[in-house]
């Protein structure tokens, strides 16, 4: 039948280019056997012109107006025959009115990038403008979507079994000490897969990898005079295009293949990939920002505007995507589906996700259709969905984000409570008991795996800095230290910043280890920040969004310098993987449901079975009954006991009695003077006496009953 089809013939010719009406869906470009199908939506544009360039040429080789008969509804669609799609770039001119008070900002002289562009040229190598003389900078490109995935299957690791590693593509390997062939790229991450396996993490969460313009700032570091860049990349230019400058092959236009190969290799090694995605705003900023795409294509559809056409700003960056406009909502869904289907991505963490729950005027919705659509989407069915459950407009939904049985959250309360408790703030024993249990107070009915537990993330102090600085030191950001969070719940252990004082340094190491152990012993999903496993510092800067230098590049020589921290972290992760009693999608019942004689979880104080919730108390212990691992289909596990002594004096903890055939063995003891701070999991040593244990000041102990 194929030979009798007539759609392989053009119906129109324009300046020698053969054309016919295209398919309106999918939006963007589709390579067909005879040419390229272009399709773009604009509700308010009167006319649209396709502008075609050869790569590296300033001027277009042709501009083809969409004939009126190629417009279906609000969609302009056309097939251009015989295009060599590898060599071309494209954009659109939109004709319409320029009336900002009405929400319209059409300018026929602008060439605009495609909101559905699957690759965007112009920043092919990190930190460089590929063609500075071009007026149209971020040029849409067409990519072959024919990657050979072989037998790749996403690992489908249950949420509760994940150990997430939050990282920046460039920062992970850009430092010369990384010893990778193409430092700072996707492919260099691939070289470090053995490192992930040694550390034991099974999921990486990448800071934004959608195309952005790292050169969007003109400010300089007031101290070093170095140019500041948008290093983190929370400033999307295209929701379908991977950042070319993160690829060693970006200059050859093969970044899509490179990123897919990274995902494939991670999957082969049992490691999932979560993307940090930014749908709440774009790189176009406010009225004064650049015109890249959305603003010129259909400003009123893509952005939240006030009745006078001004940009509403719930993101803190100048504009807000109009995510609950049905067209924009579909674009978000299309984008996520594309990453799941075309790139085999395993999950998404949504930056300022609460914005996705606001209506077109910015009002919070009771039943946000976008969040519901994502929760029920058939293509995203196996993807993890994680919300940063707040926005810059004052919406704070930790514990109350509309979940539809699917959404997990960054648990900001876990971060704050654990930081406070571990530095010795009082009045937190009860809160900590909740945090260690997967925050049933916040996620009742949603289960423990709704809680992504973290103590540090890219946004804030590193774990080492948490115990080396009382205050943020963001002077190098060029905002007179006004930026970044003020409530860090950090403690410098007596001296601000680096010191030779051995006692201070010992204490810092101890507190870092306490934090890592707490994170890995908590029910919920632990997330570790890149480098915390080796004591990375940002020299007290808690908002390093703008630095492309050692402040953000992971210094791999720390592995040697802080080998004790790395080994400690590695063993804690191994221990978590080995003990199913630590991991469950469910919350505890506080009852004995398996007939072991013990409840699944019990709390204790310095006296067994007698937790002390008093305001001044800085000690707490809990015990997980190993027999209860069977509730979740695992074989019986060991019993685990963890004691916190956050007091500045030591305490003796009376231990709960184990069944007759079991003895307490020590896994972790961070007490000053302890012979071994940690033992390899499985090789824990029995303790004497069995009835009690001395826990040094600001220390934790983890015991295994086996």
């Amino acid at each position, binding site marked *: 039948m194929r030979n009798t089809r007539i759609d392989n013939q053009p119906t129109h010719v324009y300046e020698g280019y053969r054309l016919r009406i295209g398919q309106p869906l999918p939006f963007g470009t589709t390579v067909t*056997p005879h040419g390229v199908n272009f399709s773009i939506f604009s509700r308010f544009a009167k006319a649209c012109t396709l502008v075609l360039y050869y790569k590296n040429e300033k001027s277009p080789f042709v501009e083809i107006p969409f004939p009126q008969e190629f417009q279906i509804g609000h969609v302009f669609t056309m097939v251009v025959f*015989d295009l060599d799609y590898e060599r071309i770039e494209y954009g659109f001119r939109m004709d319409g009115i320029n009336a900002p008070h009405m929400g319209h900002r059409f300018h026929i002289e602008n060439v605009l990038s495609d909101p559905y562009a699957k690759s965007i040229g112009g920043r092919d190598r990190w930190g460089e403008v590929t063609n500075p003389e071009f007026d149209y900078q971020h040029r849409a490109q067409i*990519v072959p979507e024919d990657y050979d995935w072989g037998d790749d299957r996403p690992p489908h690791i249950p949420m509760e079994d994940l150990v997430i590693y939050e990282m920046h593509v460039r920062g992970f390997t850009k430092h010369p000490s990384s010893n990778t062939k193409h430092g700072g790229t996707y492919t260099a991450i691939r070289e470090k897969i053995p490192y992930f396996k040694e550390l034991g993490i099974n999921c990486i969460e990448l800071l934004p990898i959608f195309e952005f313009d790292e050169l969007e700032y003109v400010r300089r570091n007031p101290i070093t005079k170095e140019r500041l860049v948008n290093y983190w990349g929370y400033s999307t230019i295209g929701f379908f295009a991977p950042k070319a400058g993160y690829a060693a092959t970006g200059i050859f236009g093969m970044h899509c*293949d490179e990123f897919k190969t990274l995902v494939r290799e991670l999957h082969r090694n049992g490691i999932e990939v979560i993307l940090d995605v930014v749908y709440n705003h774009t790189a176009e900023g406010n009225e004064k920002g650049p015109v890249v795409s959305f603003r010129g294509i259909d400003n009123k559809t893509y952005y939240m505007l006030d009745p006078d056409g001004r940009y509403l700003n719930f993101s803190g960056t100048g504009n807000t995507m109009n995510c609950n406009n049905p067209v924009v909502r579909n674009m978000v869904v299309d984008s996520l589906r594309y990453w799941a289907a075309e790139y085999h991505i395993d999950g998404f963490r949504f930056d300022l996700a609460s914005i996705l729950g606001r209506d077109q005027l910015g009002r919070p919705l009771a039943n946000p259709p976008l969040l519901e659509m994502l929760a029920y989407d058939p293509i995203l069915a196996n993807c993890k969905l994680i919300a940063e459950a707040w926005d810059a407009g004052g919406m704070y939904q930790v514990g109350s984000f509309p979940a539809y049985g699917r959404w997990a959250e960054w648990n900001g309360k876990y971060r704050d409570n654990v930081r406070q408790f571990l530095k010795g703030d009082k009045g937190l024993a009860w809160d900590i008991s909740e945090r260690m249990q997967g925050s049933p107070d916040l996620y009742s009915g949603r289960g423990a795996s709704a809680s992504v537990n973290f103590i540090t993330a890219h946004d804030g102090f590193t774990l080492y800095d948490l115990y080396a600085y009382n205050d943020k030191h963001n002077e190098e950001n060029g905002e007179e230290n006004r930026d970044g969070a003020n409530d860090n719940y950090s403690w410098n252990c007596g001296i601000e910043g680096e010191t030779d004082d051995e006692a201070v340094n010992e204490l810092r190491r101890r507190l870092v280890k306490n934090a890592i152990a707490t994170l890995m012993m908590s029910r919920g999903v632990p997330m570790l920040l890149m480098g915390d496993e080796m004591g990375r510092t940002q020299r007290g800067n808690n908002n390093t969004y703008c630095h492309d230098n050692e402040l953000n590049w992971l210094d791999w020589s720390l592995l040697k310098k802080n080998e004790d921290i790395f080994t400690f972290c590695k063993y804690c992760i191994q221990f978590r993987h080995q003990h199913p009693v630590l991991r469950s999608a469910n919350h505890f019942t506080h009852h004995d449901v398996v007939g072991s004689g013990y409840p699944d979880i019990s709390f204790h104080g310095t006296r067994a079975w007698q937790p002390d919730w008093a305001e001044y108390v800085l000690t707490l212990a809990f015990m997980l009954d190993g027999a209860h691992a069977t509730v979740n289909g695992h074989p019986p596990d060991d019993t685990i006991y963890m004691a916190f002594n956050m007091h500045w004096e030591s305490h003796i903890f009376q231990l709960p009695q184990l069944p007759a055939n079991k003895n307490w063995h020590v896994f972790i003891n961070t007490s000053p003077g302890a012979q071994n701070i940690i033992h390899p999991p499985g090789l824990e040593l029995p303790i004497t006496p069995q009835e009690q244990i001395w826990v040094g000041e600001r220390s934790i102990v983890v015991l295994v009953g086996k």
Partner: protein
Amino acid sequence: MIDMMSFIRTVALLNNMDINIEKNGNVTIIELNGDLNANATAKIQDQVLSATPPNSKVLLDMTNVKYMSSAGLRFLLLLSRQLGGQVGNIVLMGLREEVADVMSITGFLDFFVTAETRTEALKTLT
């Protein structure tokens, strides 16, 4: 498969790719000279594909290929698939380090056997 190849058909441009095809027993030796970009691929694809029927053995001498574009990589994979898709029906010989590097980074190298010299390549193929 031939239909798919027409994707890559291109506006004609001058380019410097030429090829040399010879037989050595049951092995077809194809020497590529020049950059394997979209234009070059379009120029040589019919000639190469017709010289390499399914299940034949092919030695691709890449010594003089300094650059391969995305279309070039895809052309090699297509050729491999036409030959039966099994690793071993085609040997890439004399890959330059830059070319091998790009192939490795983009995942294409996984589908090919490589060899340093013709002797080594022929040994692999026979």
